[in-house]
């Protein structure tokens, strides 16, 4: 008897759900799902300098969240890219970084919990001249911590990078890993691994194309 009631209930609610869907079909877009980008190289290390610091070519990897692809650095001065990566530095297409309408701020909380960008949020832009970036540089400032003892970079839990894209739409990013293959290195990893497997970003993001602040 009880089983039957449950079945009836299920049937009814399914029916209601279908009706509801049909009704709002035109206004509700397909639910957005997160895209994961893996192993994005960002100025990877080429060797070791005499000062004891990792050496690299100083390149920047430009990325389009709209098209989910890497943009050639020759297009750096265009609005084709939304975010760019160079070691632990993350740029947005704004200010001294690019001609776009970009901006960003760091949200403290969970990726899934950020359903709507709060109305009182303020987006910052990049200003390299004042060493001021929309996503602040440095350990413990925005998305990572650096441990001087283990020399490892760890993304901070509960940090979402809220991005205004080059064209003025919105996206949210969570950095998942900084090491090759998305595999966190153990503290005991070899010096070589720590050196050459760093600067490979794995992150997930949701891009809202309709211009709204809701994901």
């Amino acid at each position, binding site marked *: 008897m009880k089983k039957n009631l449950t079945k009836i209930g299920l049937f009814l609610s399914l029916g209601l759900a279908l009706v509801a869907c049909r009704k709002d079909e035109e206004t509700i877009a397909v639910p957005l799902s997160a895209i994961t980008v893996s192993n994005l190289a960002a100025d990877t290390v080429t060797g070791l300098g005499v000062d004891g610091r990792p050496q690299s070519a100083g390149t920047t990897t430009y990325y389009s969240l709209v098209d989910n692809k890497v943009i050639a650095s020759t297009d750096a001065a265009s609005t084709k890219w939304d975010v760019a990566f160079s070691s632990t530095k993350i740029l947005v297409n704004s200010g001294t970084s690019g001609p776009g309408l970009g901006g960003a701020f760091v949200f403290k909380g969970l990726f899934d919990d950020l359903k709507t960008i709060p109305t009182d949020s303020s987006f910052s832009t990049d200003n390299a001249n004042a060493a001021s970036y929309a996503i602040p540089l440095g350990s413990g400032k925005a998305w990572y911590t650096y441990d001087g003892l283990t020399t490892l970079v*760890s993304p901070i839990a509960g940090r979402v990078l809220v991005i205004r894209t080059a064209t003025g739409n919105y996206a949210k990013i969570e950095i998942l890993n900084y090491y090759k293959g998305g595999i966190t290195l153990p503290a005991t990893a070899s010096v070589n691994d720590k050196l050459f497997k760093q600067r490979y970003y794995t992150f997930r993001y949701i891009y809202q194309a309709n211009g709204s602040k809701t994901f």
Partner: protein
Amino acid sequence: MKKIPSAIFFLGLLQATNLTAQSRVVKDTLQSNGDSVVVTATRTERKLNNLTVPVTIINAKTIQQNGALRLTDILKEQTGLNLTSGFGAGIQLQGLNPDYTIILINGEPLVGRTAGVLDLNRIALGNIKKIEIVKGPSSSLYGSEAMAGVINIITDATMGAPLTIGLRYGTYNTLDANIETKLQSKNFQYQGFVNSYNTDGYSIRPNSNSRVTTPVGRYSTTQQIKWDLSNKTNFLLNARFTNEKIQNEIAVANNGVTIYSIGKENIKDVNASSSLNHRFNSTLKTSLRLYTTTYDAVQNLLTINGLPYRDVLNHNFKRIENQTDWDLNKKLQVIFGAGAVWEGVKSSRYDSEKVRKQNDIQYAFTQWEWKPSEKLTLIGGVRFDQNTQFASAYSPKLSMLYKWHPQHQFRLSIGQGFKAPDFRQLFLDFTNAAAGSYSVFGSAQAQQVIAKLETLGQIGNLFPNYYLLKALKPEYSNGMHFTWDWKINPSSALSVQLFRNDIKNLIESQQVGTYISGAQIYSYLNIGRAFTTGFEVEGQHKFSSNFTLSGGYQYLITGDKDQVAEIKSGTVYTKNSQGYSRLMKLNEYVGLPNTSKHKLQAKINYNSPKGYYLNVRAIYRSKWAVNNNNGNEVFDNGDVFASGYVAINSAAGKSFKNGLSIQCGVDNISNYIDATNLPNLPGRTFYTSIKYEFLQ
């Protein structure tokens, strides 16, 4: 005819040596242990059985039979104590860092801490009568640092063989030699002890020539004189000198580059104490004590491809103290004490290594011991410390003993302990040119230094907590200890102890601003709150007159109270294996780093009437958190842990009646190695030693 006297003489000598040998045998029943006299717990001589606070005694025989050379060797085998590494070998007592346990030699404090840690390898165990460990805040008697407890090393002042020579050799070319002299006239006693310890150090990192423990040469001597001026007055003089030379080829890995350098360290540690003791009558006695100590450490680093680096630390401490004991009646005994301390530090990490930073302390204490009945003892005490450099401190303590039943007794103690801000937290003036040029300024002068930098246009911005910088308050702990002792039968005993320590005003470094360049500026503030709680169980059983099994277990829970509050409020996150963040749950929190939930040790001891002995000791310590790597500032299940381990040590030997004793031993039999987290634990090591007492 001539042979007879010599035979008689020989027999007589044999007899005499027999007597001496026998008189040296200490009764080792469980009962006799309770009769041991303890001085640290109440600053008066009290039998262990009559104490109101938990105390552990390690006697000379245990130290000798365990083959312990340095203080660390014996402390790591005690319930509730763990060795820490980094800035020398320190001791963690009931989960509290080495900063919070005061180390005394004959009641006088040792100084010379680096980052709060006093390297206990400095202390040779050769001429020690016993070590007393008091658990729980004891600032009501000892002032600053006695927050977790007190370790008091009592040197041997008993008379015995006039000359004893000991020699020990072991793995890593470790050679320890000592000579002990004891002389006595009618009202004069002298004990002298000289120890030399040399080791090549050891390398336990695979494929590396950098040594975990470096070649060390230590020389130390202790000289004691007791002079009975009359049958009511005596004068004691005690001097100790330690000289330690360390040479180290250091390999420093910085961002993957290894820089090799040669380091030379020279540490000198001198203490001298004198006391004049007078007994007016059977109920009143007083003692006047003078103590001076200097710790001087010089470190020279000669980098192969860089600049020379020199680090100097000179700490001196002078104290005058009077203590008067007055037995008002059979039921009430009172102690009054007062003293003054002049303490100063010179360091190259302060603004000028030539200027001595000074702190003067005046203090007074009293303790009232009331015995309303045979079964009940109540002790109340309080101490007041006034400091020139920071806020003063009151340290009250109440404790009681209830002998409910001949087989059961209960102890309860509640007290407040404190730790004064140390000189580093007050005066540090350190800028690390190598790692991003960050600076740390001691709180006593941070505002002054930063204000000056601001007028020079060096300061980028100042955080709100910069304006909160003011005179540091001491760190406080409230401790509660409850102990139940159960003498199950004449050969078995069990003791259970519950403890809780609540600490507030923890002094931590925190960023207070930035330079124009963006580099951080740190200072020290009273910010943290923490707790440690748990229980200890200790037991022993004598299977026969020869065999004893003893053991101890500690269960420990620790935590940062602010972090616990944050976790409860749902603002602490963690990452799963894919890197996705999620809320952290309270049951994932593991508390303070470097603390283990479980510690267990067991010892089997065999002593034959003929002087043979054998012991096997095992220590187990469960995993402890060492590094935060999963994206939050708190330690949880997902962080980096040092694995739990077992170390087994064993020693065997024989004492002959003619004064000769031999010993051999092996430490860390299973060869457990963890170069990163346990640099103080070499692999398996062997040693053998010989000792000869020239009997009278």
